């Protein structure tokens, strides 16, 4: 079975517990204004804009799709800048067996693997295939980093197969959620409830965006909800940063640190040690 992967980070300390290999899948079902890796959102439409700006000849057309030559690439990322489609010429198709081999090669260094994205659960069957094979051959754990927009079928498949979820909640208020992501959060909150009742919801992540979802009341609502749902899920408050952002949000400054600390203090009263600070 094949999957579309944007990139693989062999050594990540921020995608779940311990040292993990993070696999960023291509394609997403949201379009967040503050997305930090917008090039993972859509599939290539072959508009060829990237070919025009590549100065080293790392990009070419072969068999009806863009071919990317890693050795020639100097990492200027101009191809990503000009892509109007929120895609990348660098993502690639990989056989699950090949990915499994890559993972197991470094097994002794790893606590596990994490699928991220994009929205990785859009390729649930591929993930399940990889995870089953990895688990048959190692004691590595598998985590899912998701925006929560998962249909019932895929969610159930994943729950029965992986070891943990990290769920992004973009906003608790549906109106704000729609403004930030383009979609309703109804399904996200439903899935939050389902996952919280399992022992798999390792972490909920919340990116603080000035003027959108940063009212203390809004965040307190989420904290109260988490407190009510279970006694273990951590909440990570992430301050917005313009790094990598492609929409008009790229002109927005980093989230104010003083404000962050005030919010943190308030929410800490509810969740105590379950609340995690982010630099």
């Amino acid at each position, binding site marked *: 079975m094949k999957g579309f992967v944007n990139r693989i980070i062999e050594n990540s300390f921020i995608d779940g517990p*311990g040292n993990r290999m993070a696999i960023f899948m291509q394609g997403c079902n949201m379009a967040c204004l503050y997305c930090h890796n917008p090039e993972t959102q859509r599939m290539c439409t072959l508009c060829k804009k990237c070919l025009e700006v590549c100065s080293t000849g790392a990009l070419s057309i072969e068999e009806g799709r863009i071919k990317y030559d890693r050795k020639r690439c100097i990492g200027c990322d101009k191809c990503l800048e000009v892509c109007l489609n929120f895609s990348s010429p660098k993502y690639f198709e990989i056989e699950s067996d090949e990915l499994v081999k890559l993972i197991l090669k*470094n097994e002794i*260094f790893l606590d596990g693997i994490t699928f991220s994205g994009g929205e990785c659960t859009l390729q649930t069957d591929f993930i399940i295939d990889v995870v089953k094979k990895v688990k048959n051959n190692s004691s590595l754990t598998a985590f899912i980093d998701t925006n929560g927009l998962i249909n019932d079928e895929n969610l159930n498949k994943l729950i029965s197969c992986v070891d943990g979820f990290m769920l992004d909640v973009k906003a608790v208020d549906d109106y704000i959620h729609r403004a930030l992501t383009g979609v309703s959060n109804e399904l996200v909150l439903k899935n939050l409830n389902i996952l919280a009742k399992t022992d798999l919801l390792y972490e909920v992540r919340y990116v603080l965006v000035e003027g959108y979802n940063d009212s203390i009341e809004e965040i307190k609502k989420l904290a109260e909800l988490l407190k009510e749902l279970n006694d273990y899920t951590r909440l990570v408050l992430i301050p917005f940063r313009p790094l990598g952002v492609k929409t008009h949000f790229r002109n927005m400054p980093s989230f104010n640190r003083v404000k962050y600390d005030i919010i943190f203090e308030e929410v800490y009263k509810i969740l105590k040690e379950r609340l995690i600070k982010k630099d």
Partner: protein
Amino acid sequence: MNVFEIISNTNIDYKEKKHLLAQAAENTLSYVNLSVKTEKHLKKGILCDIFEGHAPYRPRYILPDYEKYIEKGSEYLGIEPPKDMYEAVNALMIIYQYVPSITGYPVYVGQLDYILEKFIDTVSEKEARNLIKMLLINIEKTLPDAFVHMNIGPKETRAGRTILEMERELKKAVPNISLKYCKDETSPDFAKFAAEVALEIGKPYFVNHKEIKNILGENYGVASCYNTLKIGGGSYTLVRLNLKKAAQEAKDYKDFMDNVLPNVVDSLCEVINARAKFIVEEAKFFETSFLAREGLIDINNFTSMAGVFGLYECIELLTGLKLGHDEEATKYGEEILEKIKGVIDSIEGYGCFGTNGKIGLHAQSGIDSDIDVTAGVRIKIGNEPSIYDQVKTEGRLHRHFNTGVSDIYIFDKTAKQNIDGVIKIIDAAMKSGIKVFALNTSDSELIRITGYLVKRSDVEKYNRGEVIREDTVKLGAESIKNNKTLDRRVREIE
């Protein structure tokens, strides 16, 4: 520098001048006797004695048995066996002033956690903390040299934890610290704490206790820059072989292996043995040192070290392959090291009783004046592959060394939030055969140069021409310029 240049130099302080003047005096004698062939290799820079001097009168590294000293006291120093923590700390501070080395400062200050733990209940908890802090400050002020090295572990002790807590608070380059680490003996909690401290201040580094114990026995210490030697012993000398320069002498790989390498390694052993012999027979070190007389050192624990460096460039020159990136390159690396070891082991090491009569093999981690040549058997700075490939490649090379080999792994700041992940990598490195794992973060105020640390702010002061108390700051500042120390690949996390 000539004598007048030393005396009139405004960049160095009185103590350093005295040290350099002693060296200048030593060098008025002719060099220890060598064959013409070997002299040529030294002149060409294929061999390098790291400016040890013409007529060595003390071993380069000495690791006194401080536990014995604390147990028995010293007649020469007029020190009775300490009865409480005050006396123990005082006794240690005194003996450090009497331990010779190549730098003039003791390169090994002992297994301080175990030594102090025995006295920790003789005072209150607060006093114990104050005393440990005072000892650390005293070491930093009176022995201002980042090669001064302390050992802790493998077992967790209250004293060991306090040492790390204090060091984290003090944030000084001196002393260097090694944690003897072993999953079976070091508690996970202590290991995590040590890693947390290391990410912040660049020390301690993690020493593969199991591997080194297998080679040298339980009674070993880590001194200066990653030198693993027997306690109560040391190393007469460290002479190093520049594998890059040696490779430039060869027609091809075969010529290198069959002719050049055996020839230069033979010379390497000749210099080492001549120097060791001079220390023992001409300078009569063991007959004059109270450390020997009182059994705090014993010639039976001593050895000499043959250092190698520039393996990366050597392989690249001879085969066109890049270590860490081409699997084949590692095989060549192993073959070269086996050859070196073979030649060394075919020659008697003068006075090398501590390592079965043979000279120890050491991966020399570079000096400030090295340009375009990589330390030890490391991968060229800036060309490091993924941390996994780096560890796997170097792990295979590390097993050839019995007196010290290491590498430095730089993490970005996200590592601080996930110590479990860092420990996982350290454990995997130990399993892969890495003998010494030094870690640092890219934004650390303390920069690890080769094996020692310097403060970023001190380097800036030195570059502005200010006189610095620590002699190693000069070395570090030059090294940063020449060796691209700050370009080490950061294990960056998105």
